[in-house]
């Protein structure tokens, strides 16, 4: 089955990004496909490569990049939400791309299920 994921909150502040990541990992382990992870609202903050968490903490941004690399997952950051919050091409982490909101609607159409994680 193809899953689409929508993340509306930033990393560390809220558990949404952790829940979404663990959901994706479990789905992949079960042989499902992640059609796309779409980052919206403060969720766009998952995409900044400037993040530097303490060494004994999980690195949420790098974790997304690694998952995208290993499973060819499309990580899309909403352009309008990103520009509002200072996320641009130059500070984008590996595996993420900036695109329009149409990508979220497209995921809703193409994925079998779309799950929202937020506050």
């Amino acid at each position, binding site marked *: 089955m193809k899953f689409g994921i929508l993340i*509306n909150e930033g990393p560390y502040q809220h*558990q*949404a990004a952790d*829940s979404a990541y663990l*959901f994706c990992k*479990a789905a992949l382990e*079960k042989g499902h496909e992640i059609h796309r992870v779409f980052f919206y609202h403060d969720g766009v903050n998952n995409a900044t490569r400037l993040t530097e968490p303490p060494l004994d903490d999980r690195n949420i941004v790098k974790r997304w990049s690694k998952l995208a690399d290993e499973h060819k997952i499309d990580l899309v950051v909403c352009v309008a939400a990103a520009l509002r919050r200072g996320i641009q091409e130059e500070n984008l982490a590996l595996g993420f791309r900036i695109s329009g909101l149409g990508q979220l609607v497209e995921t809703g159409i193409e994925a*079998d*299920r779309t799950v929202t994680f937020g*506050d």
Partner: protein
Amino acid sequence: MLHIINKSPLERNTLDACLAVAQEGATLLLIEDAVTAASRGNAAEARLRQVQGRFKVCVLQPDLDARGLGDRLSEGITSVDYGGFVDLVANNKNCQSWL
């Protein structure tokens, strides 16, 4: 249909908002801070017990464990891991997150 709730019922109204709208036969999944509702002695326990005939109520065990409530799961509530969460989404036609 799957309804996902992530707020403590003692802090926000999403559990009640969901219970008011959800249709008979629906499945409720408590995640993040909402797992507190599934713990014995929580003020929401009676409310969840009342609706157990109408809905299937599940809780994400890792979130319950994280909050020190792993051994306090209320009766009648089904514990799932992240794999179980995935199965619930796959086995229901659609899902709504009560943010």
